[in-house]
């Protein structure tokens, strides 16, 4: 089971990193989602993997799973879900305003527009 889970986390992370290095916002958003899935699984595993045990101590002192990572994962899921919604809205806004969905900044961010600068020099 450990091998399966760590393999899944590794695959998701690799795919996520590959996708967020793409140039288009859609791929980047998908990559973010995969990365956050990978992290959620990873957080889940930080409490060690135990099967068929309640997440609470009982009187008999039997096996239990660590409940804290489950609470952390729940928080992380909520936050990453909200953040994904924000980035989708923002990417849409940038696409509608800018006309393309590239992630990198255009030249006009760093350099003044050429014809106007000649006007200014006159």
């Amino acid at each position: 089971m450990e091998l399966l889970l760590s393999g899944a986390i590794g695959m998701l992370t690799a795919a996520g990193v590959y996708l967020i290095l793409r140039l288009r916002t859609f791929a980047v958003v998908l990559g973010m989602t995969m990365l956050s899935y990978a992290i959620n699984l990873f957080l889940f595993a930080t409490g060690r993997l135990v099967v068929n045990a309640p997440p609470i101590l009982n009187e008999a002192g039997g096996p239990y799973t660590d409940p804290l990572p489950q609470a952390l994962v729940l928080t992380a899921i909520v936050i990453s879900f909200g953040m994904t919604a924000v980035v989708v809205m923002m990417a849409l806004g940038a696409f509608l305003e800018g006309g393309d969905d590239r992630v990198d900044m255009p030249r006009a961010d760093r350099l003044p527009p050429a014809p106007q600068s000649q006007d200014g020099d006159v």
Partner: protein
Amino acid sequence: MSHLIIAPVILPAVIGPLIILWMRNDLMLQRVFSIAGTALLAGVAIYLNALAMGGDVHVYRLGNWAAPFGIVLMLDRLSALMLLLTAVLALAVQLYAVGSGWDRKGRHFHALWQFQLMGICGAFLTGDAFNLFVFFEVLLIASYGLMIHGGGGMRLRAGVQYIAYNLAGSTLFLAALGVLYSVTGTLNMADMALRVAAMPAEDTALLRTGAVLLMLVFAVKAALVPLHFWLPSTYANAPGPVAALFAIMTKVGVYGIIRFFTLVFPQDAVIEGVVADLLLPAALFTLAIGQIGILGTRHLGRLAAFAAIGSIGTLMIAVAQFNPQGTAAAVYYMIHSTLAAGALFLIMDMIGARRGDLWLRLEQVMPGNGLVAALYFIAAIAVAGMPPLSGFIGKLLVMQATRPAPGMVWIWATILITSLIAIYALARAGSIVFWKSYELGPAPVPAPPAATGPKLEPDEPIQDLGDAPANWLAVASVLLLLSGIVALTALAGPALRLAEATAAQLHNPDAYVSSVLEAQEGTK
């Protein structure tokens, strides 16, 4: 246990929703409540400073749960000082936002502002690692909204980059916390410090991984080279007042590094200088790239952004010493650089409002040239670290703290040479913007602005002067920040003693740990 310790989180958390729910359509009411809230926050911060000044570490147990299980808020000298710095900067910048009319360029400016303050104050106060992550997300999600305030294609694109970078940073933060939890079994910072100290040295491989991951996360927030790429476009495209408030956000990253690596991973115990070896070269490169960036850029907003990167470099050199002297220098320089960077961003916005753009090139003389030039002159002296202002004292302290360090020659050479570059670059920018413009002859008389009511639709990215309702307020708020720098210079002695007391407290974490875990009144 004073209940006011939680007030810096509760206060903005109450005022923010109030503004959204009750005052959505009344900008004047929003302004009054929001500024009153920030002023109240400053008052609370002053009280908390008086409380923390005694040298005790104050613990606030949420729900009165016993420490390693419940979440705690911690108030020591450093967090009290950071709270006060946040409140003062936020108050001054908010007055500027009102005076320049930025707050009516889009909706919900003041509400987002309060949420931003809530996140920042929470991050400074919390004593729980996962809670720190949550407050980071709170301040980030508010900052996403503030960053694109006013709209515009370029700003949205920069916003997408900013979010993508910080989302990746957040996943890294979770990974770091997961690793640390799996090794130590706790998320309470004081408890984690105990477990780390008790860990046998041969079992620390995972712990070191977690520590370095955590350092990377904070380095992303602090914009340390090579993780700084998000900063220039974000700050240059953000509205001026928002960029000025973001001056404290990079300091949240610096605070995280100081907090974790003095409390949880004390230098000589486990991490064996791994972090210091990584941090010092990164800091030197940050300083060099920041100051060279000031020289290289052709946009005034990016100029201020690179100045902010450079100041983070100087700050990190002091932090990377990990000794009381270095930390004291870092605390002093942190106060200075926050105020100076905030003032510089506001002045750049004033230039943008008067010229219509921020390109560093010859244009007609702008209205109010002399006043803005004088303000820029003072801020540039502070940013470059020239005498007589506190930037000089701060750099002197950093150099003094690094004198016993092994790489002293390299550190001093970098600080001195980059200071020269910064002085030249800032002087060149000032002379192009303020002096050479007279060569083009007098400015044409600007057309009188059309008298219109408050605009709530986002329009052009840079505020035009005619639209500004209270220019005097904008100037006064910049003067407030600059007078803070002057006060920090005039009162350098007391400020330094305070910084030294703060550093001494940080480098003696036993009191912090025992006040969290041992002296637990009211719990069973």
